[in-house]
C-alpha cells in the first residue's frame, strides 16, 4: 500500500517538473535548450523548497543533493561545463556528504517529531518573497549591456585565466582550504576531560 502511495507521489512530482518544459516546447515554440532549462529550473526550485520546508532533516539533505544536481545541469545549459563538473565534485561529492554525516552525528530519534520552524516563520516568508521581488525588479530594470546569446566557456581559456591572471587568488584559496580543514578538525575534536594525556 505504501509502495503505491510513493509511486503516485513520484508520478505527481514528475508531472509538476515536466509540465513547464512541455508547455514551453509545444505552446511557445521554444528550443530544446529552453525546455531543458525549464525542467531543470523547476526541479531546482521544488527541491530547494523541499530543503527548507520538510520535517525530516535527512530528507532535507537528500533534497539538497537533487537541488545541487539540477543546478549543475543549469551550468551545462549556460555553457560552463567546468563549473558544472566542480559543482558535482565539490557540492554533491564533498559538502553534501559532510552535511549528511553532521546530520547523523547530531540528530536524535525524536527530532522529526518536534517543531521545525521558529515562531518568526511567517514574517520570514514575507521577507523572502519581498526579497525575490526586489531582485526580479532590479534585474529587469537594469541595463546589463548583455549580449543576446550566451557564450560558452572554453576550458583551455579558463585554465589560462585561472593560472595566469587569477593565480594569486588561487594560491590564497588553497591556503584558506588548508586552514579551514585544520580548524575544522581542531574545533570538532572530542575533548575528554578525564584524560590529560593526548
Amino acid at each position, binding site marked *: 500500500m505504501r509502495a503505491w502511495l510513493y509511486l503516485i507521489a513520484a508520478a505527481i512530482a514528475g508531472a509538476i517538473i515536466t509540465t513547464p518544459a512541455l508547455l514551453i516546447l509545444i505552446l511557445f515554440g*521554444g528550443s530544446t535548450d529552453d525546455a531543458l532549462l525549464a525542467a531543470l529550473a523547476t526541479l531546482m526550485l521544488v527541491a530547494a523548497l523541499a530543503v527548507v520546508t520538510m520535517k525530516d532533516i535527512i530528507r532535507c539533505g537528500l533534497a539538497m543533493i537533487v537541488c545541487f544536481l539540477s543546478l549543475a545541469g543549469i551550468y551545462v545549459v*549556460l555553457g560552463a561545463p567546468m563549473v558544472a563538473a566542480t559543482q558535482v565534485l565539490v557540492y554533491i561529492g564533498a559538502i553534501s556528504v559532510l552535511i549528511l554525516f553532521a546530520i547523523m552525528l547530531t540528530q536524535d530519534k525524536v527530532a522529526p517529531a518536534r517543531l521545525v520552524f521558529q515562531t518568526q*516563520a511567517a514574517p520570514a516568508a514575507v521577507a523572502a518573497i519581498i526579497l525575490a521581488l526586489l531582485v526580479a525588479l532590479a534585474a529587469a530594470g537594469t541595463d546589463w549591456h548583455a549580449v543576446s546569446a550566451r557564450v560558452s*566557456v572554453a576550458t583551455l581559456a579558463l585554465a589560462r585565466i585561472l593560472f595566469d591572471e587569477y593565480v594569486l587568488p588561487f594560491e590564497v584559496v588553497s591556503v584558506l582550504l588548508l586552514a579551514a580543514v585544520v580548524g575544522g578538525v581542531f574545533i570538532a575534536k572530542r575533548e575528554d576531560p578525564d584524560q590529560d594525556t593526548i
Partner: protein
Amino acid sequence: MGIADNLDFYLDLAGALFAIGTFGFLARRNAISMLMSIELMLNAVNLAIVAFGAFIPALKDRGAVIALMVIAVAAAEATVGLAIVIAIFRNRKTPLVDEYDAMRR
C-alpha cells in the same frame, strides 16, 4: 528569443533560490538546516555569477573562474560551520538554535 538566451531569466532564478535560502535561514530551528540554507544562498550567487560570465562580453571566461573560487570558499565555510555545530552539540546535547541561550541568562 527563448528563456535560455535571456540573462534576466537566470537572474530571476538566482533571486528565487536566494529568497528560498533566506527563508530557510530565518525560519528553521535546526542549526544544520540553517547551514543547508546558507549553501542554497551561496549556490544562488554562484548561478548569478556564471550567468553574468556567459552573457556579458567584458567578463568573458572570468565568471567561471570566480565561480570556482566561490565554490572553494563555500567548501571551507561548510567545514568550519559543521565543526562548530558538532562542537556545540557535544556541549548542549541539542541541534536546535533557540535552545542555545547560555549568553542570555
